[in-house]
């Protein structure tokens, strides 16, 4: 008897792309708002971005049911942290917590591809990028999701610092100004929407800086 194949999967991919860019004193996190399944669109207006702490925001693409569960889980853990420590979690602390939470389900993972963005304890922008089981790295910029194969090379072209072998090691954060980084994000998503069928409808941009958190929207191609 040939090996039985599963006739049902607990996972689904709702598509979408996420991007985060760290600056000297700001962080930009963006994601499109299209939620799809297969070749169909479920809604054009779904936020993939979640504020976890005062200076820490997460964008996740993948299976949104798992993403929602993950967001709720982290929010609850953050509340416990606040009760115990009388302060908000820092972005690096949340980054480690997210990694641990993801690995905890190593053998039935959250189908969630995350980028975490915020300000560290010194007010400098920081971005952390993850895989589905919690492997993470602090970087200057990152993208995840269905459009990441299109977006990442472009970000590398615009933001990647020269090889550390040639010059003294540079900081991961981009020297770009906040407005320039937001513009870059808009350009990047406009391009991704052209070729990635799962990315489009609307772009949600969240900017964290010393003044707080600000939200911005931009229309994208709806086809």
């Amino acid at each position, binding site marked *: 008897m040939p090996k039985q194949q599963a006739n049902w999967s607990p996972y689904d991919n709702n598509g979408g792309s996420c991007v985060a860019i760290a600056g000297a004193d700001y962080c930009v996190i963006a994601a499109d708002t299209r939620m799809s399944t297969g070749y169909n669109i479920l809604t054009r207006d779904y936020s993939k971005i979640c504020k976890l702490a005062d200076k820490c925001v997460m964008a996740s693409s993948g299976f949104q049911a798992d993403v929602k569960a993950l967001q709720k889980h982290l929010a*609850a853990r953050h509340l416990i942290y606040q009760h115990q420590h009388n302060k908000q979690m820092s972005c690096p602390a949340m980054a480690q917590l997210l990694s641990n939470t993801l690995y905890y389900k190593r053998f039935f993972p959250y189908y969630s591809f995350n980028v975490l963005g915020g300000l560290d304890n010194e007010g400098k922008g920081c971005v952390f990028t993850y895989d589905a089981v919690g492997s993470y790295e602090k970087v200057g910029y990152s993208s995840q999701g269905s459009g990441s194969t299109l977006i990442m090379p472009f970000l590398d072209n615009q933001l990647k610092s020269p090889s550390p072998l040639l010059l003294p090691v540079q900081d991961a954060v981009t020297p770009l100004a906040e407005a320039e980084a937001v513009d870059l994000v808009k350009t990047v998503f406009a391009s991704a929407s052209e070729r990635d069928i799962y990315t489009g409808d609307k772009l949600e941009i969240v900017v964290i800086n010393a003044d707080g958190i600000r939200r911005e929207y931009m229309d994208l191609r709806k086809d």
Partner: protein
Amino acid sequence: MFRNQYDTDVTTWSPAGRLFQVEYAMEAMKQGSAAIGLRSKTHVVLGCVNKANSELSSHQKKIFKVDDHIGLAIAGLTADGRVLSRYMRNECINYNFTYESPLPVGRLVVQLADKAQVCTQRSWKRPYGVGLLVAGLDESGAHLYYNCPSGNYFEYQAFAIGSRSQAAKTYLERRFENFTDSSRDDLVKDAITAIRETLQGETLKSSICTIAVVGVGEPFHILDQGTVQQIIDTFEIAAEQEGPAAEPDAATGRDTAAEQGTAADQGGSTDEGVAPMDI
């Protein structure tokens, strides 16, 4: 009450139908420094007297935030209070996770009471030695509950627990009818005045009391020292102006307390000899 042959276990009834261990737990609560609570239709205010072991040490934390809409003040074994507040926080977080809405205060209070009851019916446990004033806001309005070690709970318009709480209770009894429609600021003033009653002579300053508020549009939070001191200053000035009118009131308060001569007050007067673990 004095030592007798029925007070060793919490699972032993006395011939008169009393559980002495539970009553001793209530005694422990009366030894703690005072905590008071009062509510209006839209706000609940909690206050407590800060007692420190010595001048060198910091005072114990007696007011805890449980969730944005619930907080509590304790009197008695603060360690027991801390553990119970951790339980309450957990319950609120879990309820919110499942139902995406805040845990109604009445439900939390029943869960607490059931938890306390368990400790009155197990031979390997002891009752919690702490009284809790739970202040909260939910769809049915503002609430103030009192949970005791016995596993009973009551809802109050205003209440005081701990040592010298009778003085505060007398003050609150006189004023409680006005509380329902009180403004938030008046409620806070009443809370501070009630605390002053328990101090009986000591100067009232912001370092000796902690005040917390929860209300419509106002998540539970502890007022910072500066704000409290400001409020104290404003009505100390008013009290001076009232002068002779204020004094007879304070005097009657003390007389009533002296006449009552309850165990509560006797416990209160031996404050200086209180064991280090209870505040």
